[in-house]
């Protein structure tokens, strides 16, 4: 049942993969019988069907150790065990990477080859990733904990799709010829910006790689990418494939490491022309500060959110329950845009809460490599403990704990799908980004009220609206101060749809044609005209 409902409200690609009849997984999800016990979830973690082959830094087309020789552990969140030792990049490595990127951009073939040729490299890369779909998906699940089906049937194919999308832009990047007020010939050239520093998070390691590296390369730039310390593995794997596809050395450099060291070094580097960061709002502020203090490199930020889901009185309640559930619990609740404040109109409130509670109670949690699992472990102990603290806060401030509320099992970072009802705006769980499987349901009376309350946050990333009424939909879509409004759907992430935040959820947009301008500079070229036949 769950699988079918998901298919009716989320993006077609997601639907196609989750309900593929060949897998038999649909029926597992439908039965919803799985509430794994401590023993079953943890005791026998499935051995991932993949080897870790790439653990070094990738600089100038070569896999190299960190200058310091240091390594750090990347950990399996199902157990807390170490997956591999990965080279730990620091400022010195960032310097080398930036130097390589600078040389590749200023002197190398990448910006000088035709756009068509660049697009061929990116398309070859997409084809290679497609061939490696399952191994890559297994690596992603091992490092991050998201269900394997999600990685293999949705995220890796979406990665491929994104690179094909960007490859198609490469030879279509246009500037303008512009009317002047006098006899001048005026053109705007949209030039590659140069060396882009990109810092990506751990919640969607591969997709975040695609959102950043895709447009940067399509526009002819060179990149220094820092992955999250929790999830360094998949980027190194695909970066290797990118070189196999013909990317010249130095065009993409990948540094594994930590924020305060490698991340800060990129932000402050005087020779990085552009910075793009996805992560928490608090770190985003630091990133912007470092960029300002160093060389004023332009910055785009994709930060946190506390996105409202608004279930109107005329909503299809069953659909709304299922989609709102997905909006919050997807990816273990670890989405910047998770629908973490569920406003339900009082007329349908009781029905909604009952159904939401039942749905969460049925959510199958366990080893993400097991078929039919909807929810894996949280990423690491830090997140895990933070979520449990918020749950405690919810209880202490008087919200009604409908289901869940505790960890699951004794190993790894599993948390029970948790639902709070009777949440009020002043509670911490209604204000702070929890980034975990904790749904908060709030009651409202009128459209004006819910608009005011939905907007009463310093965040502004996304919102979901459930209504059958055209005017309600249009009114709410315009009134909500957020970067994406999903009407009767959620998390529809097609390649051409721009995504980003209002207010403290970020600066700039990724995906779609809008993402290109992040990686281009505009140059106006002006020449006087003699005897122009027209102006």
């Amino acid at each position, binding site marked *: 049942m769950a699988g079918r409902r998901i298919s009716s409200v989320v993006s077609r690609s997601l639907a196609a993969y989750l309900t593929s009849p060949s897998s038999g997984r649909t029926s597992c999800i439908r039965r919803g019988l799985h509430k794994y016990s401590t023993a079953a979830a943890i005791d026998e973690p499935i051995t991932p069907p993949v080897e870790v082959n790439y653990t070094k830094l990738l600089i100038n087309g070569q896999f190299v150790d960190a200058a310091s020789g240091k390594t750090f552990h990347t950990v399996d969140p199902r157990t807390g065990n170490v997956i591999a030792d990965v080279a730990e990049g620091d400022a010195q490595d960032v310097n080398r990477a930036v130097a390589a990127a600078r040389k590749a951009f200023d002197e190398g073939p990448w910006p000088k080859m035709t756009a068509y040729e660049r697009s061929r490299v990116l398309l070859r890369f997409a084809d290679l990733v497609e061939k490696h779909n399952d191994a890559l998906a297994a690596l992603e699940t091992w490092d991050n904990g998201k269900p394997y089906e999600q990685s293999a049937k949705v995220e890796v194919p979406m990665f491929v799709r994104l690179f094909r999308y960007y490859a198609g832009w490469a030879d279509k990047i246009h500037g303008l010829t512009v009317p002047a007020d006098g006899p001048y010939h005026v053109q705007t050239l949209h030039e590659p910006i140069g060396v882009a520093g990109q810092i990506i998070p751990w919640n969607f390691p591969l997709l975040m790689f695609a959102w950043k590296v895709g447009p940067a390369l399509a526009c002819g730039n060179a990149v220094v990418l820092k992955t999250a310390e929790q999830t360094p593995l998949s980027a190194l794997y695909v970066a290797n494939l990118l070189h196999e596809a013909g990317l010249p050395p130095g065009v993409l450099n990948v540094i594994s490491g930590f924020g305060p060291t490698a991340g800060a070094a990129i932000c402050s580097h005087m020779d990085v022309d552009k910075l793009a960061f996805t992560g928490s709002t608090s770190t985003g502020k630091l990133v912007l500060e470092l960029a300002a203090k160093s060389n004023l490199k332009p910055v785009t930020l994709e930060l946190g959110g506390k996105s409202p889901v608004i279930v109107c009185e005329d909503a299809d309640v069953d659909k709304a329950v299922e989609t709102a559930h997905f909006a919050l619990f997807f990816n273990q609740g670890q989405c910047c845009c998770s629908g973490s404040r569920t406003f339900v109109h009082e007329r349908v409130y009781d029905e909604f809460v009952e159904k939401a509670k039942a749905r969460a109670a049925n959510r199958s949690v366990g080893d993400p490599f097991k078929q039919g699992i909807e929810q894996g472990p949280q990423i690491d102990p830090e997140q895990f403990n933070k979520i449990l603290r918020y749950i405690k806060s919810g209880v202490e401030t008087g919200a009604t704990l409908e289901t869940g509320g505790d960890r699951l099992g004794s190993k790894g970072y599993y948390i029970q799908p948790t639902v709070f009802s009777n949440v009020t705006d002043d509670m911490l769980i209604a204000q702070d980004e929890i980034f975990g499987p904790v749904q908060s349901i709030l009651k409202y009376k009128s459209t004006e009220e819910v608009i005011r309350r939905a907007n009463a946050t310093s965040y502004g990333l996304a919102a979901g609206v459930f209504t059958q009424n055209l005017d309600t939909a249009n*009114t709410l879509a315009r009134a909500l101060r957020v970067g994406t409004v999903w009407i009767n759907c959620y998390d529809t992430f097609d390649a051409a749809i721009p995504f980003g935040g209002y207010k403290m959820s970020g600066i700039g947009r990724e995906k779609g044609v809008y993402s290109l301008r992040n990686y281009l500079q505009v140059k106006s070229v002006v020449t006087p005209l003699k005897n122009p036949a027209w102006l």
Partner: protein
Amino acid sequence: MADKSNGYLADSFINIPEIKFTKLFINGEFVDAISGKRFETIDPRNGEVIARVAEGDTEDVDLAVKAARQAFDHGPWPRMPGHARGRLMMKFADLVEQHAEEAAALDTMDAGKLYSIGKLLDIPVGAASLRYYAGAADKIHGETLKMSRELHGYTLVEPVGVVGHIIPWNFPTNMFFMKTAPALAAGCTMVVKPAEQTPLSALFYAYLSKLAGIPDGVLNVVTGFGATAGAAIASHMDIDKVSFTGSTEVGRLVMQAAATSNLKHVSLELGGKSPVIVFDDADPDGEVCVAGSRVFVQEGIYDEVVNKLVEKAKNWTVGDPFDPNVKQGPQVDKKQFERVLSYIEQGKRDGASLLFGGKQHGKNGYYIQPTIFIDVEDHMVVAQEEIFGPVMSLMKFKTIEEAIERANSTKYGLAAGIVTKNIDTANTVSRSIRAGVVWINCYFAFDNDCPYGGYKLSGFGRDLGMEALYKYTQTKSVVTPIYNSPWL
């Protein structure tokens, strides 16, 4: 050993492919014309019949349009997301590239195109056109609008529907892809009528499109003649858009037929008499000069240019287009061949001086010597009419204003070449020439991202570039009231 002078090269030099596709391609199948009729397609190297090809007429066009209509109104093609269409087009492009040799050989036999250029350039560029538009299929945007009332408005850019493409014989492959690729990307379905002189590669590409997985009925090919099959397309009541490339004379007929039938959208890419203007400061060794049919040379550099052109003409090898050393193949058919020769005679009669060439090359086939006239005056036929053959008319000019005026005194306006190193000359002249494409210090500089088309009697509408997509779309505005919007 082959005797190049008679224009026929032994078949053992190149693997001449078997002609596999000679029937109409309708709704995913190769079928005979309803009448059963066939017509001959001729090898211009020797005047011999290459193959007999199904001759489509009104009834066949009708069947093709029915298939295209069904495919558009009910089939998957317009209902797929642009990305999915793009994937199939990419597969099609890969197949075209893989079969480049076979396709190039077909064009060489059928149209006299140079084989080595076809293999290395024309066919790969055709595949690149498919890829360009495959990558554009998921990037066709409308707009949300700024209404000055409490209204929410946006435009949807929708596929126009069933398209008729009537394509010429001079670039059979590139014309085929230039036309079909953007229409496919936009989600249209189509009926292609290739020129009767050059039907073979189009049928081959139809076959490859099916292999690629393009659904039945989306791309139909009806081979036949303009007066029958072409006219049937131009006047069909169920075709939404016709795009025609060919002569101005026939372009008029197409537009008339469109008007008297169902007011279908029309785009025309017609003839030209494109000037090349060579200024005193030009690099006389440049390749540019060679390409134009009406070449204006500034007096300061005139003699030098004339000498260089004659040198070039002497080395301009004419012969079997399968021979990689040959620079010029035969004219496409007897009619064109005779037409060009008669223009040459006219030029002589009108008093132009024949500097080079002027006769048939060899004894067989439709080869003509590269021909240069000097002392041409603007009013002469050879300076006004489109000859469509290897005949260059050279004229001398004094000032930039004179060059502009004379370059513009033509009913045509397709392209122009400007040869100069001076920034002001380049900017002034490029703005002043009434033509759709201006090439500065280059010629025939086509690119998939660069729109191409004419002014004046050279037609309207643009091929190539993102602009071409919009030839195959319609804009729909959608408006609805809004209430209490915090902004307007």
